[in-house]
């Protein structure tokens, strides 16, 4: 399984001088989100998947939400948990390196183990469309380290 930090960039942020080079005074952990749309572009008869800015987004399109984090605390942090409520207008496109919640964020786990109550009141296995929240759990982030997490969603 792929580790959650796709691009774990450990910066030598020990000591005053190098720490100044990024975000002096940003003493917490930074979180920054971006979103891109996955589109297929055909160039010279070859179909390619490209990521573009979210303009002219319509139902059925694939979105990639990315959240970058950076530990600017000057010391390691522990039990780092990123929680992302899924916007109502999208549904999760596929499972990933995260836990999911199908009950509005009360409990998290793997999708395969989750059940939801259907319209008829009968419990059924949860599907991607049932996911309401995502959660990434990192035991620790070294001082100055950064990385990112992402999920793929489809506009309902």
């Amino acid at each position, binding site marked *: 399984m792929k580790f959650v930090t796709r691009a774990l960039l450990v910066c030598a942020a020990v000591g005053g001088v190098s720490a100044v080079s990024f*975000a002096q005074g940003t003493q917490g952990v930074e*979180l920054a989100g971006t979103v891109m749309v996955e589109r297929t572009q055909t160039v010279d008869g070859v179909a390619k998947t490209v990521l573009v800015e979210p303009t*002219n987004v319509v139902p059925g399109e694939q979105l990639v939400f990315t959240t970058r984090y950076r530990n600017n*605390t000057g010391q390691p942090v522990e*039990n780092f948990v*990123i929680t992302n409520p899924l*916007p109502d207008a999208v*549904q999760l496109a596929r499972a990933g390196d995260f836990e999911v919640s199908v009950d509005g*964020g009360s409990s998290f786990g793997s999708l395969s183990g989750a059940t939801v109550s259907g319209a008829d009141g009968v419990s059924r296995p949860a599907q991607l469309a049932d996911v309401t929240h995502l959660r990434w759990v990192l035991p620790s982030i070294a001082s100055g380290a950064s990385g990112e997490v992402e999920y793929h969603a489809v506009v309902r």
Partner: protein
Amino acid sequence: MSLLRPVWVAAASGAFFAAATVPAHAEGVRAGTIISNTATASYESGGAGRTVQSNTLEFRVDELLDVAVASQDGAPVASSGQATLTFSVTNTGNGPEAFVLTADPAVAGNPFNPTIVTLAVDSNGNGIYDEGDQILANGGLGPLLDPDASVTVFVIVDTENAPDGQTVQIALLAEAQTGTGTPGTVFAGQGEGGGDAVAGASGADDQAQGAIVTSVSAVALLKSAAVADPFGGSEPVPGAIVTFTIVAQVSGSGSVANLRVADEIPASTSYRAGSLQLNGAPLTDAADADAGQASASGIAVQLGTVAAGENPNVTFDVIID
């Protein structure tokens, strides 16, 4: 210190969607909907628990222009002059949209091209072309349809003077009022909710065909007479009874409606009361519930709808004066 934070760290709040419950499964997110995404993180640092929120991403869902047209006729519609074809037009996009509706009688392969009389929208929703429906010129704009809503459209076609037994196709085309184009074509600023409109997989237009089979009928009346004189012979002498037989022959295919057979009582003869018959069954002379009536001046029998191949016959007697 907050002044020195990168802009994108500024914690945003007030996400439009709380996602507190399992969302309903919609056919498609309505145009103009704002998608808003915010992540939060909790962690422990130096023994203290902290939380941080990401920037909030917000962008609008644009209007998808899509439409589906389908014939509602299970089989070719028989036409003996005029026929009504029934189609459904469904807005499969995600915003309210009206569609230009055009019926095309010149479909490749047609043995002849019938005339489009008019289009009509099933305004009263009863599925039948009747008086309550809104007439629409061919090429006119149909009603505004909400996403996933559909409307029944009738195409009234004239096949007058066409030969019997011909099958012709009529196409109904629906085109988004905003515009049509290859999938992905953008109509800037013309979307519902302030965004753009984008042609969907249908290209923002669709068409379907309905079929008509012509059925032409003709009626021929054959009249014959048989004389029975009072002496057991067949001489047309005074007192002889003449039995007239009128056979209505319907040829071609289909049927004729409201067929009525009438005849006068010949001069110098008198109608024999109670002699009127339809297919051998007696009819009363009075103008009443049965199909026939007779008097001193003539007879009339209402045959109603008669299918081709049926040959109903009417008989009556007169007495030579």
